[in-house]
């Protein structure tokens, strides 16, 4: 089958969504399909520009390529799922959240001006059109499916995807808590840094890059022995960090899905998260596969020190998580997307 995987591309940014679409293309090819990633740069500001970007996707003709039919389109994110195709599958990693749950929060982008309010409504209208055209709609997590229902009245089947392919392994914990994330405000890494400030025994390694790095480094000032910014690390180094850590911290605000818990679990490590983290809560269960606490530095510190003091329990949580993560694989995903 010839399959176009459609996803927007934010130039110079490579995160979980990009990893997922690359892996999806690879998984389709491994199973004998002729798959290709189709992207268009995405810039969602200022104001009504977000609609221009959707229009670009609308003009793309993916019915065929080089004289041969494209049998199916799998689109993963706004505005890529605005593409037209008679056999369109939408696998929603997330919508344009600025128009929905981020609206009127510090993560939103639309002001109270009539133009901004109407632009937000236009995104809603676009989603309604684009999702209604799809032959099937999947959501990467129950959290994303719930948002689709709540904001758009759309039904979606929940289909989690596997995390990136890494040489996952496990080793004896070396006592540090690992954060793996793009460094931006919504990932709430500052909560972990504040936790370290309140608990001097806590050691942290922060892997990843992003626009919030400078602020986070300032916040970590004076905690030199406790916090290490590892920056962007390659696959081997990342697998090694996962293998050696005590636990993985992952507490974004109402995350759509979150690959990091799966990566932690495949390394047999427990996850520390918060009660408002969204998607991760579907696999991180308190005292089963990790620790779930209030989004406060003291609570995060307490969770980390608990795991440090109960290493056997931490290992057991990690192993339980490993069993959960292994159930999510590309065979099941590809079967669902192509059935």
């Amino acid at each position, binding site marked *: 089958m010839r399959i176009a995987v459609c996803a927007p591309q934010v130039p110079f940014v490579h995160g979980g969504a990009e990893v997922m679409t690359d892996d999806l293309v690879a998984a389709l090819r491994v199973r004998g399909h002729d798959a290709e990633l189709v992207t268009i740069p995405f810039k969602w500001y200022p104001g009504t520009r977000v609609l*221009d970007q*959707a229009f670009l996707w609308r*003009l793309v003709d993916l019915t065929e390529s080089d004289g041969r039919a494209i049998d199916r389109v799998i689109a993963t994110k706004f505005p890529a799922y605005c593409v037209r195709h008679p056999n369109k599958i939408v696998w929603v990693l997330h919508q344009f959240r600025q128009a929905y749950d981020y609206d009127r929060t510090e993560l939103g982008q639309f002001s109270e001006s*009539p133009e901004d*309010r*109407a632009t937000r409504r*236009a995104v809603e209208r*676009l989603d309604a059109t684009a999702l209604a055209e799809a032959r099937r709609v999947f959501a990467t997590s129950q959290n994303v499916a719930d948002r689709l229902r709540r904001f758009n009245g759309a039904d979606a089947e929940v289909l989690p995807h596997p995390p990136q392919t890494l040489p996952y392994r496990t080793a004896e914990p070396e006592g540090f808590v690992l954060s793996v994330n793009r460094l931006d405000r919504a990932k709430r890494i500052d909560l972990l840094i504040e936790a370290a400030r309140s608990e001097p025994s806590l050691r942290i390694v922060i892997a990843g890059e992003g626009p919030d790095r400078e602020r986070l480094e300032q916040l970590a000032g004076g905690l030199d022995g406790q916090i290490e910014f590892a920056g962007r690390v390659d696959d081997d180094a990342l697998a090694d960090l996962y293998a050696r850590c005590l636990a993985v911290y992952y507490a974004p605000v109402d995350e759509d899905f979150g690959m990091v818990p799966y990566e932690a679990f495949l390394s047999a490590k427990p996850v520390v998260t918060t009660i408002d983290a969204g998607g991760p809560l579907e696999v991180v269960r308190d005292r089963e596969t990790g620790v779930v606490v209030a989004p406060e530095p003291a609570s995060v510190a307490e969770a980390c020190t608990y795991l440090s003091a109960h290493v056997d329990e931490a290992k057991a949580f990690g192993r339980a998580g490993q069993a959960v993560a292994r159930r999510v694989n590309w065979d099941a995903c590809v079967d669902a997307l192509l059935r």
Partner: protein
Amino acid sequence: MRVAYYSPLPPSRSGVADYSTLLLPALRERVEVVVAEPGKRRPAADVSLYHVGNDPEAHGWIVDELRARPGVVVLHEYVLHHLVAGITIGRGDPRGYLDAMERELGVPGRLLGLGVLDNLLPLLWETQPERFPLSGAVLDSAHGLIVHSQFVAERARAAGYDGRLWRIPHPAWPTPAVEPPADAAGDPLIGCFGFLNMNKRVPQLLEAFASLRRSRPGARLLLAGASGERFDLDRRLERLGLGDGVERLDYLPEGRMWSLMASCDVLVNLRYPTMGETSGSVMRALSLGKALVVSDVGWFAELPDDAVLKVPVDEFEVPTLEAALVLAADRKAELGAAARAYVEREHALARVADAYVAALEVAAGGDLVDDAVLRRIAEAAVEVGHSDPVSLARAAADAGIVG
């Protein structure tokens, strides 16, 4: 966003006043609302919302304001002939009436209007308003249109309205805790609430009920509401021998009305011809989870089949109605549960208020957004020599990118 809100409000006894009394608090929780008052200065706002019904006394001033500053119209009924006659002929502006007739029907309409003005024809707003709705007089000034039914939406489009249109269900009243009164009983007890006239098919209801009483002598009919001037209800009751089977009540205070409705086994709300209106009584009946019988016309026909029994208006109307009353009484629990579920699903006040806000936000800023997007599309098209940017604009509209 600031909304200027034009509507009759209590003490006006219109259904639209009741509607706004219900909607306004929910709307105010979501946006800033300034209620306009007749004869006072127009409030400054991002968008104006005009509730329009057919009563010239309640809505005449609202149409005046609409014409001065176009905005979003809530069309509570499609037929506005009485309103138009009131704000033209009633104000000494017969030419305005002729213009409205001509807008709708061309020169023949103007000639008909002249016939009315010269007393050569009966007053059309009293005899056959549904044939001459005259809603174009309002639609022409609508910058956006909110309707409650597909019925009205289709007629507005057919009348040439091509602007933004939203279909927003009538909100349901929160059901008060009511005790059925001790003085209302029947086996079954059938209730008909609201203004009683030919339009509400009361003669047909009485005939069907009289026939029903022969097989179910314990049946009683509660007729609650004022009756039309030219509708001699008492004589009809006497002729059908329904003296002891029918209880007649005039205007009821809100609490007593809810309580009596709650005591009924079956509620009836018939209509023909329809003016494209919704019915507050029907909404109350559905909210109460009552078995309900309606006419199969207009908005009423769009109610779900599992929750409401619909009687076609044809030569079999009376026997069908009698059968429907029996069926509704026998299946009142099932119908009532479906009615309540439907109301909770489709007519919840919060859902309706959210839909209003969505519509008003698009009405307030949608043109700015469309202009910005279409300008950039057109510029890009022209820069690469595309000679037909209109086709691109159409593609944008098809995708929902512009409204």
